[in-house]
């Protein structure tokens, strides 16, 4: 094998001189499979259904009798969703509140925890496990925990506070009650991601900041946070995705009604289940896609623009 490495190293060392490396037939086959199979899977399971949903959202298909029974109705579904469907705007509002809560409360709290734990204080191993534990739980389990904790007569919260509040049945407060536990889990997730990033920061940076006499917050803001740029991109994308794909926890609590409506719930209500309004549900799904893609595109564009300028 040594005889093989030398010529390829030579190719690698020399910048692309335009001399293409010959691939054997077996190499070509291997490459074709390694690229082709995932491409087919992603294309078939992600991109095809996406475009199919966009197409179906302009029809009134009810899922029975094959796609040929679908009738084209233009933007009628979108019209109905926006004007006469009572749960729609509350669902949009709740998704945005969810996003804002995760972005402004849960993620910064996760970052705070990561920063503190990075200092390797006494017991930080223990705290890491404690804060990461909720991440291990699926949202369905957390939904069960929510129901037990917030039960009006037998729940922990009412027991401790001595109140009789109907946390989950009152539409003005049940979203916040649920968000507390969602934030609990999300913070742990973010904490671990940031902790990994913080450990990868060059210690000489921190030394330099300390030597220059920067205060802790100043050092964090000007030295450490910018150095976490690659992690930040991941964190933002993860937060936005978690906010917009929220589904399991509200479904477990009360099937996503009465103050806990979300766009994902509306999609499943219309598509899965007896209702079977495939066209209508697809319209809501397309709205969800647009809402998801926009912030990510904006943020990633900004990041790449900045990194080009840098």
């Amino acid at each position, binding site marked *: *094998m040594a005889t*093989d490495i030398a010529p390829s190293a030579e190719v690698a060392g020399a910048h692309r001189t335009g001399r293409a*490396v010959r*691939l054997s037939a077996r190499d070509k086959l291997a490459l074709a499979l390694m690229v082709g199979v995932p491409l087919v899977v992603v294309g078939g399971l992600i991109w095809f259904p996406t475009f199919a949903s966009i197409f179906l959202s302009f029809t009134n298909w009810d899922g029975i009798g094959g796609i040929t029974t679908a009738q084209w109705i233009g933007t009628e579904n979108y019209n109905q969703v926006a004007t006469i469907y009572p749960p729609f705007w509350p669902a949009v509002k709740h998704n945005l509140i969810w996003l804002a809560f995760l972005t402004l409360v849960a993620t910064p709290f996760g970052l705070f925890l990561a920063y503190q734990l990075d200092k390797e204080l006494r017991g930080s191993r223990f705290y890491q496990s404690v804060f990461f534990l909720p991440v291990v739980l699926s949202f369905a389990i957390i939904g069960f925990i929510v129901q037990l904790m917030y039960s009006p007569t037998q729940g922990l919260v009412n027991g401790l506070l001595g109140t009789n509040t109907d946390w989950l049945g*009152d*539409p003005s407060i049940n979203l916040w009650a649920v968000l507390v536990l969602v934030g609990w889990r999300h913070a742990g997730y973010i904490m671990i991601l940031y902790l990994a990033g913080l450990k990868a920061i060059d210690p000489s940076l921190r030394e330099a900041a300390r030597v220059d006499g920067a205060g802790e917050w100043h050092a964090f803001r000007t030295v450490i946070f910018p150095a976490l740029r690659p992690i930040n991109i991941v964190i933002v994308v993860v937060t936005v995705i978690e906010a917009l794909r929220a589904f399991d926890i509200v479904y477990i609590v009360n099937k996503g009604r009465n103050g806990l409506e979300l766009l994902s719930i509306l999609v499943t*209500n219309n598509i899965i*289940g007896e209702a079977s309004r495939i066209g209508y549900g697809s319209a809501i799904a397309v709205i969800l896609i647009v809402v998801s893609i926009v912030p990510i595109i904006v943020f990633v564009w900004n990041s790449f623009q900045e990194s080009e300028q840098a």
Partner: protein
Amino acid sequence: MSDALPPAPSPEGEAHNPSLSRRGLLAAGVVGATAAYGLSAGGAAARSLSPALRRALAAGTVSFGSNASDPVPKKAYENVFKAFTKKTGISVNVNTVDHNTFQEQINSYLQGRPQDVFTWFAGYRMQFFAQKGLLSPIDDVWTTLKPQFASAFQNASKGADGKYYFVPIYAYPWAVHYRKSVFKQNGYTIPKTWAQFIALCKKMKADGLTPIAFTDKDGWPAMGTFDIINMRINGYDFHVRLMAGKARWDGPQVRKVFNTWRQILPYTSSGALGLTWQEGAQQLLNKEAGMYMLGTFVGQQFTGADAKDLDFFAYPAINPKWGQDSIDAPIDGFCMARKGSNSKEAKELLRFLGSAAAENIYLASDPNNVGANKNANKSRYTATQKKSALLIAKSKHIAQYLDRDTRPDFASTVMIPALQQFLNNPNDVNGLVKSIQKQKVAIFGS
């Protein structure tokens, strides 16, 4: 990460490396995956044999799709099938699915590979699928069954085209449940009119009870109250037309229903939108509530002496024109899937399930319901069952419950949130009925 491509294999490299190289592993993986896919595809191909061939292979068995996931009904069905196999020698392959999941998956189930016979409900919920061509007509099964069923049950088993698609097994009425001991202790009498009903609620409230237990976290229990008040005020015919999308929701009739309902809301359980029906039954059981409007399945939560203390009365009359002539009494039963085998064994099973013998076996294990067959053995009925049977028999009109009488997409995506919205904001009836009417036009088309 270098730009270099992986080094091309040299012949002597491969020969000198007898253990599994990367390429070998990849090749083996591809072959293995293809083989696994081939096998499963082959299996699928075997399962997608023509119905005739499947019939020939499966002679002597019939498959049954069941939503009876709770232990009591599941055991009852097992007993029924044992008796069927003993009588005819045909064995039954039962596939039980969780109750709610079964309904939710019904669309893909009936278009995929359904069992020959499956549990379902009477009403529009059955006619809808018959219209879509997913159920097989079973007029030949009904030739022997017809004399055994009252006309109300016969009509409930027909599709919109007049053919039979459904075989009923039992029904259960919705009524106002109460505990006899509580009524006796406080000197309450059964109310027959709306005025008496409200007066009783006032009295119960003064005595420290929640007059009417009410829960709507599940979304469907509130439909029972809507249905009965609508039938009491506007009559059965209007109710049927409303369910079929042939009447307006923002007309004066429906407004009157909501305005009347609002009169009893102050007497219902607080925090109803956070309570399940089981919790409502517990309120009745613990003597915290005086009355509970629910189906007789509420009896499942009462055992022993409490079960004997449980009783019910028909919802009070509101409009003397209609009196108490209508009730909600959902009928459960069976249909034959068009994509099943449609074998003669399946039809024999349906004939057996419609017989009084099958009903007697079922009801012996699940006494919360009433047999649909005229010849069902009523001597073994509990007091509650006898009363249920009497209530159903003397009702002139039987409705199937809102989510079975109307289109499933209307019931689940429009009515559940609308009723919850009413409970949150009972004063805005105007906005509510206008919103329902708009959505109803969008779904029904007119």
